[in-house]
């Protein structure tokens, strides 16, 4: 196989595997802030028990996230050396900022979050929880900014020619706030909230089905469901904003997402479909005019089709189409499930509807599928460019790395990640089976001192 294809497979595989975990860390980070905040406010020990349990789950996802994230940072240099030379001046500074502002924050305060329960007072512990969640969100900011710069470069100029050409920063803030960064950041973070929220809903629903830890399960399910509902609705808006941006900045990608071959007003939006690239046609069920609405808020607006894009600048159409539709479809189903869940909860029928609880148990897969599919659509839809309209993926490889080396490392990562994933599932299952600790209903150490003291002050 060709080295370019192998390098792309390796990056896609390691990035996709890595991205199972950061959304959980970001989402659970937010939920831990909410739960521990509720505990400090109400002093209901149930919240303390929840915070402890979900912290243990958080730690598990965080550990694998760090280990697989280090790989990503190395891979830019190992497999994409030409790209690294080209973008280092721009991309590197975002990555370095991520290290200094986000990773140190996360990993430093994680120590207090995990091991500090009995060593620090409740306020300091809560501060640490907030800092970990903040750090997780901050890391999303910098990496999405860097990736968005690859989609919609801004604030740079090109220095040198041919082999020695590279992008240099002219305006740091224009680079940070490039045309797509804020829309994509919102959409990414909201997707991550859903990953965390649905995990909580799923575990809560599972316990209700098995009639275990009823109070704990109910509280987790409710908090998870509220966050899931809000986040999934927000996703609609951030997705719409992103679509408008893609239509404006990356018309080739939008055309591929929808399999739109001919530039036209009143462009249709497919519910499902199949793209035949040979005959340049798209078959499926479509809603007339809706793509024009999605992209331009106007059913009569003209949407650019693939006919306006030179053949050697078109992304793989069917793959991008399917990934985009998978993301949208799963996203819509999650909204529906969240609404049904909230109605069932309000009408007091949640515990009786076993089918609904089973659906919720498996819904944990939903945001993961949607997040993965969304990224595949975004990254494959940018092809053949690695940096949009500046650098082709085929020109971005490491010149000195051979196909054999890449293949060897793919095999290594496949084995290592398979093992990691098996261990992750085993341990997550173990934690869920073990459930929350009843000991955690009794608050110990300096956390208890702090609370007693504050009670004393209040009296």
């Amino acid at each position, binding site marked *: 196989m060709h080295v370019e294809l192998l390098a792309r497979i390796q990056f896609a595989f390691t990035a996709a595997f890595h991205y199972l975990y950061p959304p959980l860390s970001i989402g659970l980070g937010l939920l831990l802030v909410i739960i521990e905040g509720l505990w400090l406010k109400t002093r209901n020990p149930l919240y303390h028990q929840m915070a402890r349990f979900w912290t243990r789950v958080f730690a598990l996802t965080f550990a694998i996230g760090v280990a697989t994230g280090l790989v990503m940072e190395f891979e830019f240099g190992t497999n994409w050396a030409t790209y690294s030379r080209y973008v280092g001046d721009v991309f590197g500074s975002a990555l370095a900022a991520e290290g200094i502002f986000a990773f*140190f924050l996360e990993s430093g305060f994680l120590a207090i979050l995990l091991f500090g329960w009995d060593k620090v007072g409740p306020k300091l512990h809560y501060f640490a929880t907030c800092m970990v969640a903040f750090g997780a969100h901050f890391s999303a900011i910098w990496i999405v900014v860097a990736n968005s710069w690859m989609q919609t470069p801004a604030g740079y100029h090109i220095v040198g020619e041919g082999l020695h050409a590279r992008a240099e920063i002219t305006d740091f803030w224009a680079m940070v706030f490039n045309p797509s960064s804020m829309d994509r950041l919102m959409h990414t973070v909201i997707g991550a909230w859903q990953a965390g929220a649905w995990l909580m809903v799923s575990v809560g629903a599972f316990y209700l089905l098995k009639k275990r830890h009823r109070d704990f399960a109910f509280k987790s399910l409710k908090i998870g469901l509220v966050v899931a509902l809000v986040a999934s609705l927000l996703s609609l808006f951030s997705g719409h904003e992103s679509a408008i941006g893609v239509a404006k900045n990356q018309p080739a990608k939008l055309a591929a997402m929808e399999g739109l071959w001919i530039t036209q007003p009143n462009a249709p939006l497919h519910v499902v479909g199949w793209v035949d690239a040979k005959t340049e046609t798209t078959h499926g069920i479509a809603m007339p005019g809706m793509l024009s609405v999605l992209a331009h808020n106007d059913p009569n607006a003209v949407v650019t089709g693939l006919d306006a894009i030179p053949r050697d600048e078109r992304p793989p159409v069917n793959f991008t189409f399917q990934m985009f539709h998978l993301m949208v479809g799963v996203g819509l189903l999650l909204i529906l499930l969240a609404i049904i869940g909230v109605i069932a909860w309000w009408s007091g029928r949640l515990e009786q509807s076993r089918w609904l609880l089973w659906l919720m148990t498996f819904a944990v897969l939903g945001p993961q599928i949607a997040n993965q599919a969304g990224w595949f659509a975004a990254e494959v839809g940018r092809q053949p460019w690695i940096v949009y309209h500046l650098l082709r993926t085929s020109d971005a490889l490491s010149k000195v790395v051979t196909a054999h080396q890449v293949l060897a490392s793919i095999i290594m990562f496949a084995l290592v990640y398979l093992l990691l994933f098996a261990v992750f599932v085993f341990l997550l299952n173990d934690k869920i089976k073990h459930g929350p600790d009843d000991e955690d209903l009794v608050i110990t150490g300096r956390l208890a001192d702090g609370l007693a003291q504050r009670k004393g002050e209040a009296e």
Partner: protein
Amino acid sequence: MTFEHLDLNTVWFILVGVLFTGYVILDGFDLGVGAIHLLAAKSDHDRRLFLNAIGPVWDGNEVWLVTGGGALFAAFPDVYATVFSGFYLAFMALLCALIFRAVAIEFRSKHPSPRWRAGWDISFAVGSIASSLLIGVAMGNIVWGVPLDAQGEFAGTFLGLLHPYPLLVGVTTVVLFAMHGSIYLVLKTEGETQARVRRWVNPLIIAFILCYVIVTLATLLYVPHMTEAFRQHPWVFAIVIPVVLLIANIPREMNVGKEFLAFLSSCGAMAGLMAIFGIGMFPDLVYSLPAPEHSLTAHNAASSPKTLGIMLTIALIGVPVVLAYSASIYYIFRGKVKLTKLSY
């Protein structure tokens, strides 16, 4: 902020050096704990103490590598690209070792079966030793020089990286980290466990000093470009004096029971060794052998002054904050390790 009066390239040469120095000092002790994990511990209890001694901090220590790598990417993209693609298989092996080590720390405690724990113990120890060795081998190659072509691309082979000098530096790194880690463990443990660890400290100090002498002789004899700066500016030789004194101070403090001072001396010695490494290399980041004119330097491999200035602003804001809360986290987790239900 503007830094018109600063030689930003030199500043970033130093700052990247500082980040990697932070990494070797901090991750050095937890890698070192891994290196003696199978040897100095006798029971599951000992091993748990070892892991929990580094438990709250190893993660943050590894971030120094991530940030150092990020800073190298941003400040000297050509160096990042050349070294990471050139040392491809070595870095893949390093990643593999670091992953196994990291997950071993997390996963070992999650299941009580002895076989499960023994498996992760081996993974932790082998991962730690392999990581230390590969870091040392990479540094050894940077010191020795690697073949670069006119474009600044790596022109050697994987096996070519494994010649005696880098391997010697690799072994020295393993021994140095093991010494550093064993002193840290003496600080963090007590009773019988501490006595067992203590037996390893002196042999490791002696082993390190032997390695250090051999590496120094080899460098003086075979790596002339590393001594150039010291010949041209004899006053920088002064740095060697505190380094040697600090190394000599380690066994002295250990023998009078001042382990914390011994540990600080070890940290100081490592910082000094990194400084000597940096002075010897400057301004080269990757020395090209046999064609020194192709070397990547702080000037020809750097990002634009604009980016270096932006990053310096980021570093000036971020690093003091990082240092402040890192120090307070070490303070919160000071003292001897106690096993609780939160422990690994």
